[in-house]
C-alpha cells in the first residue's frame, strides 16, 4: 500500500467512498454467513473478519491504529521492529537513504506513514526502486510535511485500501497466515527493502496533488472489488461504468497518473508508477517507466524464475546494472526526444554507480534463502486472488511427535467416530497421513465446529481432491461455501455430491443438470433443488435420506428460504436424532428467520450432545444478543473463545487463534452491558484480561 493516508497515523482504517463500497460488498457476503453461523443481528461475519486481520503484532498495530484495528493488510501489523533490516541493509541500494532508519528529519508526522508504507509495500510484492527516492528524498523532505495533507485525498484512502480488507478470500489468506503461522509470518514482510514510494512532490503542481500510486495494488484492489460483485446478476452491475473502470484498473488497461485516470502506456510488467516526479514535464509516461527501471528488478524476484533460491547469482542479477537497465530508452523510443533519453541515462548512471557500490556488500546467503521462501509463499497467498489451497498448520504441534497418537487417531478415524480430539490432534494426524481423505475431512469438520471457516474449506477441498467420491466431504464443503457466501462453490459441491453419489449416480434427474456454466446462479440453484427433490422422491417408501435433506437445506439457505430449509433439516434430524451439527443448523436457520427464541433449544441440544461445539455456542450467544440477554450472551461468547483457544493451542502465543468474529461480537455485547473497559479488552483480543476481570 502506497497510501500513507491509509495508515497515516489515522485512527481509522481506510476510508472513503470506496471503502464503504467495498465494505458493503463484504457485507453482502456476510449475509450468507449468517446462515449457519451467526444469526441476523450479527450481520456480516465478513466484516468481523475484516477487522480481524490483527493477528500478528496486534499490540503493535494498536500503536498505529489506536486499537481500531480496522483491518489493514497484514503487513501493516508487522512492526518496524520486527524487520530485521540490518542484515539486508548491505544488499540494497536504498539503504543509503535516510528512509529506512526511520527517524529521519522529516519523519515527524510522516514517520508512521513511511514505516507502514514500507511494510505493506513489501508485502504486496512491489519493491519499487525509485531513483527519485534517492535523489529527491533529502531535498524534498521538507516538502513532505507540507504536503502530507494532500496524501489524504480520497484516492489514497479508498481505492488503495488494502485488499485484505475487501474480500473473504484474501481475508482468509490473511487469517490463515495470521492464525496459524505467526512465526513465519513475520519474515514475510521483511524481505526486500523497498522504499515506499515517496511522493515526489518537488514538482508539485498547484491543481493536482498526486500521491504515488502503486499500480499493482490498485489493480489488485480493483480486481477484488470486481470479484465481489461477480455473482451479481443485476444487469445494472454488469453495465456499471464504475465497475467497468474497476475492471480496467484491474487489467491495467487504465492507470492512475497524478490526478487522472489514463490509459496505460507502459507494457512492461510494472506498468504504472507513482508518477509524480515527471509531472512537471507533463508528458511521456513511458519514459517514466524507463527511468524507474524497477520493472526489471522486481518481476524477476517475483516470478520465481530463480531456480536456485539463495544462490548468490540472484543477488548479482538484481543489482548488476546492465541487467537492470536492460531495456533502455532506445527500445521504446517513440515520440519522446533525446531529452528523455538523456534523463534516463543519468538515472542509469546514477544507479549504476550506486549499485556497483552496493554489490560489494553481500547479504548473507541464508537471508536470501529465506527471502526467496517468503516470496514464494507470498505468491501463493498475498495476491489473494488465487485461491489458496495450502492449509496452514499450527506450528509446534505437540501431537506431531510420536506415533502413538497416530495409531490412536487412526483407529478412531477408521471407526468414523467424530471424537473429541482437538484440532491439534487432527492436524497432527493429517500431517502424518497427508493422503488420507478421511483425516482431512475430519479436520475440516472440526474447524467448522470451531468457527474457523477458511481452514475448514481448505481442509475439505483437500479431502475431495484426494477422494472425489467422498460424499460427506462434498456436503461439508457445500456448507462451508455457504457460510463463506460462495454460492457458486456451494452449488458445485452439491452437484459433485449428487454426481458422486452411487446410490443416485445413474438416476434420471441428474441428466437434467446442465453444465454449470450455462445457467445463471439462480437457475442453477433451482435446478439443483429440483434434482434433489426428485432424488428424495426416488427413495423407497418412508425412507428419508438425511444427506439429501441436508443438501436441500443448505441450498434453501442460500436463497433465504428459511422455512423450507428448516423442514429439510428437521426431516434429517428425524433420521439422525443425535447429530449435533443438524441441531445447530436448525437453530441457525430459525435464528436467521428471526425466531431467535425458538433457536435456543436447538443450540442447547447441540451443546448437550457436544459441549465443545464452538459454533453452536457462538450462535447461542448471538441469539441471546438478539433477545437482548446480554449477560448470557457474553458468557456464551466468552466460553466459545476459551474453547477455541484451548482447542487450538497449547500455551504460548494464542493471539490470532481465536476468531475475531467472536471478539467483535463480545465487544458489542460488552458495550451493551455498559462495560466499556471490557470492550477495550476485546479490541486487543485479551482473553487473559477477561480472566483477570472475573
Amino acid at each position, binding site marked *: 500500500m502506497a497510501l500513507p*493516508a491509509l495508515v497515516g497515523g*489515522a*485512527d*481509522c*482504517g481506510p*476510508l*472513503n*467512498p*470506496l471503502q*464503504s*463500497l467495498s*465494505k*458493503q*460488498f*463484504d*457485507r*453482502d457476503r456476510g*449475509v450468507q454467513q449468517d446462515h449457519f453461523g451467526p444469526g441476523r443481528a*450479527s*450481520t*456480516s461475519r465478513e*466484516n*468481523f473478519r475484516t477487522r480481524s486481520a490483527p493477528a500478528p503484532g496486534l499490540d503493535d498495530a494498536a500503536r498505529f491504529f*489506536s*486499537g*481500531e484495528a*480496522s483491518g489493514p493488510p497484514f503487513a501493516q501489523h508487522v512492526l518496524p521492529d520486527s524487520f530485521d533490516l540490518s542484515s539486508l541493509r548491505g544488499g540494497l541500494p536504498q539503504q543509503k537513504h535516510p528512509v529506512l532508519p526511520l527517524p529521519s528529519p522529516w519523519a515527524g508526522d510522516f514517520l508512521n506513514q513511511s514505516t507502514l508504507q514500507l511494510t505493506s509495500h513489501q508485502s504486496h510484492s512491489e519493491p519499487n526502486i525509485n531513483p527519485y527516492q534517492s535523489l529527491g528524498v533529502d531535498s524534498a523532505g521538507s516538502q513532505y510535511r507540507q504536503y502530507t*495533507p*494532500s496524501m*489524504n*485525498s*480520497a*484516492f489514497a*484512502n*479508498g*481505492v488503495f485500501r488494502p485488499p485484505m480488507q475487501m474480500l473473504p478470500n484474501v481475508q482468509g489468506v490473511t487469517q490463515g497466515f495470521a492464525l496459524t503461522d505467526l512465526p513465519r509470518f513475520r519474515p514475510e514482510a521483511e524481505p526486500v527493502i523497498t522504499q515506499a514510494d515517496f511522493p515526489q512532490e518537488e514538482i508539485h503542481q498547484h*491543481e493536482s*496533488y498526486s500521491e504515488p500510486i502503486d499500480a499493482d495494488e490498485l489493480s489488485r484492489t480493483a480486481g477484488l472489488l470486481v470479484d465481489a460483485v461477480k455473482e451479481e446478476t*443485476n444487469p*445494472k*452491475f454488469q*453495465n*456499471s*461504468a*464504475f465497475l467497468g*473502470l474497476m475492471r480496467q484498473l484491474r487489467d491495467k488497461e487504465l492507470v*492512475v497518473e497524478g*490526478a*487522472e*485516470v489514463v490509459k496505460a502506456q507502459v507494457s512492461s510488467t510494472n506498468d504504472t508508477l507513482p508518477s509524480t516526479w515527471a509531472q512537471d514535464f507533463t508528458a511521456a509516461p513511458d519514459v517514466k517507466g524507463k527511468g524507474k527501471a524497477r520493472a526489471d528488478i522486481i518481476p524477476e524476484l517475483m516470478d520465481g524464475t530463480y531456480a536456485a533460491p539463495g544462490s548468490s547469482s540472484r543477488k548479482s542479477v538484481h543489482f548488476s546494472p546492465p541487467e537492470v537497465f536492460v531495456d533502455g530508452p532506445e527500445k521504446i523510443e517513440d515520440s519522446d526526444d533525446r531529452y528523455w533519453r538523456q534523463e534516463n541515462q543519468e538515472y542509469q548512471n546514477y544507479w549504476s554507480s550506486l549499485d556497483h557500490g552496493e554489490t560489494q556488500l553481500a547479504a548473507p546467503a541464508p537471508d536470501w534463502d529465506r527471502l526467496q521462501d517468503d516470496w514464494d509463499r507470498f505468491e501463493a497467498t498475498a495476491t489473494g486472488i488465487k485461491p489458496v489451497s495450502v492449509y496452514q498448520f499450527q506450528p509446534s504441534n505437540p501431537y506431531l511427535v510420536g506415533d502413538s497418537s497416530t495409531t490412536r487417531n487412526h483407529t478412531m478415524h477408521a471407526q468414523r467416530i467424530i471424537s473429541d480430539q482437538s484440532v491439534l490432534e487432527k492436524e497432527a494426524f493429517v500431517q502424518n497421513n497427508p493422503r488420507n481423505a478421511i483425516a482431512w475431512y475430519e479436520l475440516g469438520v472440526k474447524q467448522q465446529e470451531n468457527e474457523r471457516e477458511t481452514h475448514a474449506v481448505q481442509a475439505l477441498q483437500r479431502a475431495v481432491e484426494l477422494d472425489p467420491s467422498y460424499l460427506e466431504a462434498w456436503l461439508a464443503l457445500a456448507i462451508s461455501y455457504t457460510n463463506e457466501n460462495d454460492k457458486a462453490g456451494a452449488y458445485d459441491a452439491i452437484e459433485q455430491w449428487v454426481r458422486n453419489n452411487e446410490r443416485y449416480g445413474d438416476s434420471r434427474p441428474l441428466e437434467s443438470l446442465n453444465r454449470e456454466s450455462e445457467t445463471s446462479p439462480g437457475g442453477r440453484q433451482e435446478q439443483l433443488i429440483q434434482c434433489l427433490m426428485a432424488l428424495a422422491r426416488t427413495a423407497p417408501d418412508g425412507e428419508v435420506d438425511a444427506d439429501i435433506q441436508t443438501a436441500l437445506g443448505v441450498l434453501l439457505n442460500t436463497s433465504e428460504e428459511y422455512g423450507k430449509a428448516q423442514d429439510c433439516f428437521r426431516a434429517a434430524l428425524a433420521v439422525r436424532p443425535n447429530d449435533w451439527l443438524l441441531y445447530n443448523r436448525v437453530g441457525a436457520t430459525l435464528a436467521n428467520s428471526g425466531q431467535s427464541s425458538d433457536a435456543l433449544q436447538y443450540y442447547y441440544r447441540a451443546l448437550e450432545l457436544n459441549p465443545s461445539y464452538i459454533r453452536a455456542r457462538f450462535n447461542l450467544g448471538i441469539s441471546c444478543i438478539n433477545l437482548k440477554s446480554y449477560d448470557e450472551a457474553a458468557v456464551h461468547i466468552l466460553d466459545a473463545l476459551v474453547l477455541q483457544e484451548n482447542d487450538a493451542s497449547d500455551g504460548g502465543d494464542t493471539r490470532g487463534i481465536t476468531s475475531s468474529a467472536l471478539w*467483535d*461480537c463480545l465487544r*458489542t455485547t460488552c*458495550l*451493551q452491558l*455498559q462495560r*466499556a473497559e471490557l470492550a477495550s479488552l476485546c479490541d486487543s483480543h485479551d482473553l487473559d484480561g477477561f480472566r483477570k476481570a472475573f
Partner: protein
Amino acid sequence: MNTPGSLHTPAFSHYSLAWSPFHNARLALASAANFGLVGNGRLHIVSLVPPTLQLDKAYDTQDGLYDIAWSEIHENQIVTASGDGSIKLWDVMLNDLPIRAWHEHTREVFSVDWSNLDKEFFISSSWDGTVKLWTPSRPHSVQTLHAHSACIYQAIFSPHHPSTLATCSFDGTMKIFDLPPSLPDTPHPPAHAALTVPASVTEVLTLDWNKYRPFNIATAGVDKNVKIWDCRMVKMGSTAEVGGICERELRGHEYAVRKVQWSPHRADLIASTSYDMTCRVWSAKPNPPAPSLLHVHDAHTEFVVGCAWSLYDEGLLASCSWDCKVNVYRV
C-alpha cells in the same frame, strides 16, 4: 409516479445534494470527477423548471466534494465539504471562487450540516475523527469535538435541541453529544458522548434525526439495514450512557446504505439510498403494518449516494448517483 426532472452532468459523479431552504426549486449538488477517487470536484447549482432540471451554475474545486449544506441564514450561501480536508463557503451570486475557505481537518471532510436552530453555526465531520463547529464570520473553527477515534461519516444537529448533535462512525457506533458552552480553544480531551449507541457491528455510514419525534434517529450503513432508534432515555449533560432501543429495522437494500433522510413533512416516512443502485422510501411506523417498503426508485445506473426531500413540496424527492445524474420525482 411521475418524474419531474432529471439532469445529467457528464464526468462528474454526485455525492450529495441539498434543497435550498429559501427557494423552492433550487438544488445544490456536490460532485467529484472519476467517481471521487481522484481529481477535481464541482459544485452544481440546479433549478427545477418542470418538466426538467436546469443547471444554473458550477464551481470547480481542487478536490472532490463529498457533502453540501445551504446556509440557514443567508439564502445565497452554501458550504461544501471536500476530500482535501477543506471547507468552503460559496455565494451563488458570485462566480468562480468561494467567499470563505477553512482548512483545519487533516483528512477528508465527509459531511457538513447547518443548524436550523442556531442559524449562525454549522458543523463538519471528518475522517480525522473530529467534528468541528464553525460560523462564517470566524477565521477558525469555534469548537472541536474529538467524537470518535475512527472516521466519522456524518454529523448532524438535532432539529429540536440547539446544542445537540449526533454522529455516526466507522466504529459502528452512533453517538449523541451535547456541545458544551464554547470554551477558549484549548486542547480538548476526547469528548464524552451523552449517549453511545452500538448501532451496528460494522460501519455506520449515515444517520438522520426524525423531524417530528425528538431523539428518534435513523441509522444505516454497511449492514444494509435502516435502523430506527429510540434514544429518549438519554439525559443530556449526565454521564456517558450506552444503549438505545432499536424500534424498527427496515430490510431490503442489497448492499450498503449510503444515505437516509426523514421526510420533512411526515413523521414516519424515510428515504434511503444504497450501493444497490436504488433509492427506496419506507414507512417507519413503529408497529409494522406490513409492508414497510413503499417505493423503489430504480432508474439510476450506478451507486446512489445522496437523496433529499423537497422542503416545500411534500412527497418530492431528489436522488443523485455516481451515474452523474440527479433525478427528481414524486413518491
